[in-house]
């Protein structure tokens, strides 16, 4: 199911969408499915499932820790697709966020076909650009999947236009120049980037990197179509340690705070 449906709903409510991320297999495959289900129940409009990769250059220490735990636990690409199926069954559009090599290794066409069969909405590909992965663009078009590429404050106008033209579903604007991780203050680079992106496309623009609470979510929701949160969710689970119930409770509290935030924006 494309994210278009979720954005149609949030637009009709006059608010931004809340997009939540967790890596598959963290703390376990079933544990991550439970966690993401809790995030859906508490108010996430779209879910991004991270495909754990050994060399995640766009991730800060929090997500690196979670991904490392997931890989140590033996998570496989097929587990990610299984997780997509389980989370998408809640009715919320579910994307996979992944570094490129695991997709290429699985087979781009095969990955797209199985993602589609699992009910997945599409892929977010943070470490590649549209001009480097034509085979994914072809496979996504073939299987009716969302293609979410990133734009950055450093993107030239020409590259912004090229990138948003290649996107389907939404455009992911990175609020800061840097890797994932919660930050104390929101970025002043994000609003002008969103404005530049909007000038090139009618697609919704999501903003991520560094958002960790409802106030920050409200601030971003004032100018973006989606608020994307990752590290803060991972942090909530990491802090709960082996206490699963406490972890799920913390996720619900955080999700509700963020969900109120996107409705204030």
């Amino acid at each position, binding site marked *: 199911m494309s994210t278009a449906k979720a954005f149609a709903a949030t637009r009709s409510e006059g608010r931004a969408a809340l997009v939540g991320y967790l890596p598959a297999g963290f703390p376990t495959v079933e544990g991550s499915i439970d966690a993401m289900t809790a995030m859906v129940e508490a108010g996430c409009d779209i879910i991004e499932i991270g495909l754990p*990769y*050994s*060399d*995640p*250059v*766009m*991730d*800060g*220490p929090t997500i*690196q820790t979670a991904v*490392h735990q997931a*890989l140590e636990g033996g998570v*496989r*690409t097929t587990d990610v697709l299984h997780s997509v199926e389980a989370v998408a069954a809640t009715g919320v559009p579910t994307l996979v966020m992944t570094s*490129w*090599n*695991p*997709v*290429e*290794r*699985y087979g781009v066409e095969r990955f797209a076909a199985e993602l589609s069969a699992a009910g997945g909405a599409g892929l977010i590909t*943070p*470490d*590649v*650009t549209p001009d*480097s*992965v034509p085979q994914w663009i072809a496979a996504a078009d073939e299987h009716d999947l969302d293609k979410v*590429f*990133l*734009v*950055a*404050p*450093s*993107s*030239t106008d020409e*590259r912004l236009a090229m*990138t948003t033209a290649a996107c389907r579903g939404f455009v992911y604007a*990175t609020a*800061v*120049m*840097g*890797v994932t991780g919660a930050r104390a203050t929101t970025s002043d680079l994000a609003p002008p980037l969103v404005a530049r992106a909007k000038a090139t496309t009618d697609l919704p623009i999501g903003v991520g990197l560094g958002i960790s609470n409802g106030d920050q979510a409200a601030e971003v929701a004032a100018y973006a179509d989606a608020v994307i949160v990752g590290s803060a969710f991972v942090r909530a689970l990491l802090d709960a340690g082996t206490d699963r119930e406490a972890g799920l409770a913390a996720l619900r509290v955080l999700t509700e705070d963020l969900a109120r935030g996107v409705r204030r924006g």
Partner: protein
Amino acid sequence: MSQGTIEGTYGDFGGRFMPEALIAELDTLTAVWHEAMADPEFTGEFDRMLREYAGVPSLLYDAARLSEVAGARILLKREDLNHTGAHKIRNVLGQALLAKRMGKTRMIAETGAGQHGVATATAAAYLGLECVVYMGELDTRRQALNVARMRLLGAEVRAVASGSRTLKDAINEAIRDWVASVEHTAYCFGTAAGPHPFPAMVRDFCRGIGDEAREQCLELIGTLPDVVTACVGGGSNAIGLFTAFLDDRDVRIVGFEAGGEGIDTPRHAATITAGDIGVLHGARTFVLQDDDGQTIESHSISAGLDYPGVGPEHAHLAKSGRADYLPITDAEAMDALALLARTEGIICAIESAHAVAGALKLAKESPGSTILVNLSGRGDKDMETTTAWFGLGDPAAPVVEPVETPEGPQ
């Protein structure tokens, strides 16, 4: 300048698989590099620094006693004699000069053995740039001497404790730094790998190795060598040597990869011999990876070859058949290191000992041939590893006799 139809690709390999945040900078870097290489002022300054500061051109040395043992004529390109003790100084002086041209005030680098880190710290000190070096935590322990050298040179060394705590993780961390600091920071990449323009740019800054060696060889023996060889981790010293000989179809080109404990074990770094095509650190190349595309941790006794990827031009030279790539085990490299020490009085880096070991094997196959070896670095930094390997540290303990000591000079 680059091979292939699209700039930055080498047959099926290379390219630029990088986050959008860095693409504008890579485009600018490519443009500034092309412009600089066409500017006589830049190339003149680069040549002057190499000559007056780095001690280049390095000697081509006719290793008579080693040749006698080997049964072939072995010529050593003495990059170990360069300032900072390895070929790496060529690359960093080029990149540091470019950084200045781009108005950068800070340089970051990754390092495995520490040679590239020391070279970068040196160039930063020489040209007045701030310097931060990322080094796998495991490597900081294997190469403590180089850590001390970098710090003395004024660089900050950041030990990387993520992943396998080696070179690939240091690269990941340096990329993370760069995404956040690109406005004022240059990434001085240490090998001929990574996204375009690094493979081509590093090659061009290092190609003096081969250009000099080719000329020196013609002068010394009146003809080209039968074979040119070098060790290959990421592959900067190798591509620096090979480039000058690519069009000499009669010259065989052989790169030696780190076979670790053997390519039939999981502990090696023989990427071309035993890896599969994938994308790592911005380029499509051969990668040690599992069925899911997760990078497999490599192993080599030599930190500088302990890398699960390889430069894309090497991948192309291997696939096209122009060059051969063969594995050398830890044990073979250490034997060659000792043999070189005892026949020639030269203690080379363990990285370079892989090329020496390979040359000894080639000599057995083709007795009487002429083999040019890139002796890419010196071995001081490795003495702790070497001491432990041969049991040299304890005066009371019997020393493992590494090789048959050859006869004295004639």
